[in-house]
């Protein structure tokens, strides 16, 4: 998956096309996903599910469990989670570069995008298990 190396396909221009475009595209899509979904997720898991009396709680839990058990929702969730992870870790990487680790720009890719990838694989595995 390392689009970060070498020139773009059919390149050959003087400048080196970097894989940054690829990571940026993931970052950008992830930003939209995170903005659209994450606040609602937080409200659900943080406030709606734990709140209320036992009856309400179990009803909501059931609704939640039912929803995430549905195939299309699983796929969608995987998409949202994966992209959001890449969004976050891309920002973390650039944040580290901006505060002085710029010279490790390349080296930082592994831990940052690696973590995002690992978390995504984990999420996929979890979703498969529902």
């Amino acid at each position, binding site marked *: 998956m390392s689009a970060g190396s070498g020139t*773009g396909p059919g390149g050959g221009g003087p400048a080196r096309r*970097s894989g940054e475009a690829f990571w940026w595209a993931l970052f950008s899509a992830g930003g939209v996903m995170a903005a659209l979904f994450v606040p609602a997720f937080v409200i659900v898991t943080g406030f709606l599910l734990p709140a209320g009396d036992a009856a309400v709680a179990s009803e909501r839990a059931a609704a939640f469990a039912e929803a995430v058990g549905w195939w299309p929702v699983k796929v969608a969730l995987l998409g949202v989670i994966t992209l959001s992870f890449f969004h976050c870790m891309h*920002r973390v990487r650039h*944040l580290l570069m901006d505060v002085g680790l710029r010279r490790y720009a390349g080296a930082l890719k592994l831990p940052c995008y690696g973590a995002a990838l690992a978390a995504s694989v984990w999420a996929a595995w979890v979703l498969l298990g529902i």
Partner: protein
Amino acid sequence: MSNNGKITLEIFRYHPETDTEPRFQSYEVPYDEDWVVLDAINWIKDHIDGTVTHRWSCRMGVCGSCGMMVNGEPKLTCAAFLKDYHPRAVKVEPLVNFPVERDLVVSMDGFMDKLDAVKPYIIRDDVNDTSEGEYLQSPAELARYKQFSMCINCMLCYAACPVVGHEEEFLGPAALALGHRYNKDSRDQGQSERMEVMLSDEAMWGCTFVGECSVVCPKHVDPAGAIQQAKAMGAQEYFKGFVMPRGAGG
């Protein structure tokens, strides 16, 4: 003079022939509420100290030569009014993120190279003869790039962008906005050629959308917006590259 008061200017001084470190020198000048900071600097040069060195020409905010840090803010000194600072002292420094040649004069070498790098001119496969008249361009097509063509190369945005200070490869806000201006021009066909440069490692991607470039821009060019748009175009161009061999797309 509309006010008999005085105002103090603290000016950054550095002379490469005698100094290794910069220092500040204070000057007291007459305060006139119609004056801009540049008028005060000129007054110092004319009447107190001819060695104070700075650039200026138009005094109407369009030649782009008088950018300096005024109380820590990148400003056109011909558009920064003394009345907005009086009675406090005004501290004037050369633009940050650039090497200092002398006093308030910074080196423009890197900046000029970056402007050059984005190929800021119309590139076409088929060039019409002038006898065929102008290329048609609707007001709507003009509006797509007009804002990005308003840059006066004052470099205030370079002083405001932290990435410029840290990343040499970064082309910076004004140059990227200029590249984008031509990419968006309906008369131009050079986008992929230009993108070749902009897509390289940190040339454009170094920008983390801090956004202060657009905040300080005196001409509302919005380089921050231009760069984000250019990134989206760049990403498309990048993925297109996988599908279509270069050259086929024109």
